[in-house]
């Protein structure tokens, strides 16, 4: 099994025209996430956050799946997760910083759901700001099927996206939320045929990459602040953000463009 010891890239990361594309790259394993995947994904997400040339991030899979979730074979064989405590440590020390980074980095993050997102794979899709799917996409909280409770932030994310009723049904039944239902519930922003997914996502990402970046960052910061605060606190935080934004070149340019358009 010489291929096993070959250095293998589980994650691809390219930046083009302001769009940082992070791709799960284990199509033969339905993009299962193992120890090496975690390390490479963590690096890619960190780089995407820090690199100013990246204005928009896209997270996607290769092959048929977005991601089938944790590499259970690797877990059973004991690589890196020998004890229950290891399982907890991987969640706290590895997944948590990645998921927090996706949700809080001050730039848009789009999940291009080229197929099923299962377990921790669904967590990554749900931690993104926007999801675009195909008719074959689905979200599956498969934990209960192997005797586990939900993790990867879905106990927080899913109830906020779909309400507790649908979230509980997914957690209890271990059955998928199919593309059409996910779209109807607003979890997936829109559904396009697989052959059009890349183009659709590229168009959206390019558009967002041309939008004023601090204004978009402000929207993300305000939403993240609001999710932890009262209505009054959210209003106040917005008002201060808006003061900063009103003093920015982005606002000056935006107003100029707006006035020019009206005259024209």
């Amino acid at each position, binding site marked *: 099994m010489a291929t096993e010891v070959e250095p293998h890239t589980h994650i691809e990361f390219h930046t083009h025209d302001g769009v940082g594309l992070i791709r799960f790259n284990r199509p033969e394993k339905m993009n299962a996430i193992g120890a090496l995947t975690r390390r490479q994904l963590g690096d890619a997400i960190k780089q995407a956050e820090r690199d100013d040339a990246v204005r928009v991030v896209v997270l996607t899979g290769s092959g048929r799946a977005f991601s089938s979730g944790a590499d259970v074979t690797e877990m059973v064989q004991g690589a890196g997760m020998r004890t229950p405590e290891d399982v907890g440590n991987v969640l706290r020390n590895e997944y948590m910083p990645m998921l927090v980074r996706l949700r809080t980095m001050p730039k848009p993050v789009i999940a291009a759901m080229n197929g099923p997102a299962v377990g921790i794979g669904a967590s990554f899709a749900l931690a993104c700001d926007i999801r675009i799917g195909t008719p074959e996409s689905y979200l599956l909280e498969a934990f209960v099927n192997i005797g586990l409770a939900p993790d990867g932030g879905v106990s927080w994310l899913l109830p906020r996206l779909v309400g507790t009723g649908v979230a509980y049904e997914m957690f209890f039944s271990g059955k998928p939320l199919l593309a059409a239902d996910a779209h109807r519930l607003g979890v997936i922003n829109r559904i396009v045929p697989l052959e059009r997914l890349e183009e659709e996502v590229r168009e959206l990402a390019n558009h967002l990459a041309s939008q004023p970046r601090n204004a978009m960052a*402000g929207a993300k*910061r305000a939403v993240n*602040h609001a999710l*932890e*605060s009262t209505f009054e*606190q959210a209003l*106040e*935080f917005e008002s*201060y*953000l808006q*003061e*900063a934004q009103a003093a920015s070149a982005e606002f000056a340019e935006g107003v100029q463009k707006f006035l020019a358009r009206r005259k024209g």
Partner: protein
Amino acid sequence: MIAAMGYEHILLELEPPIATLTLNRPKVLNALSPELIRELTTALAELDADENVRAVVLTGGPKVFAAGADIGDMADRGAVDQLRRDQTGRWAPLAGFSKPLIAAVNGYALGGGCEVALMCDLILAGETARFGQPEINLGIIPGAGGTQRWPRSIGKYVAMEVMLTGAPVTAQRAYELGVVNKVVPAEMTVGLAQRMARQIAEKPPLAARMAKEAVLKAFDSPLTEGLASERKSFYFLFATEDQKEGMHAFLEKRKGVFKGR
């Protein structure tokens, strides 16, 4: 704005009636070296004596408040060296500052940096602020009041967590605990602290001073003593011109103009 000269490790901006002190060693995350502490406390003593200054903002700038003491300077010191340094005495101009002092905290306020923030009267935190006492990781404990001011502000259990785990708390958690007055967008923290300082600077300065003194008294005296002291300050203020001005302005429905007399 007048930038006062003669300081290397801090910036002092005098914009009467307020002043802003900025810790200014960004390359070392504003580590609190003996030189920086000397400059900071000297500047505070000057501002305390300056009648034109009525409120002060203390900040580390947009990225970091202060990531702690200068460990390089401490690693090989002995107990007697540290004792001779007189930790309590050297912070007196900060802990005993008589005018309202607002900390504007972005990024890390750790160890001594956190204790400096806790010695201020109000704390405004950017969303990026992190407060913590990581001293335990180095085999020591906080030495500038952290073990005393945390529990007096938030109670025993979370204070213990802060001291014993060394893990920092986020701006939002600090707000929920009551250590932080407001969480604001990081680019606005210093500006808002200055705005707040200007609002406070419009108040009668002697009343502000007595109010501050009375609140601090609550932290280190029994209730009866604190109440008696409050009462004396209350009587004292009736001997000031500002009290006459304040009450007459109120009755005449105009804004009072206060002189600190």
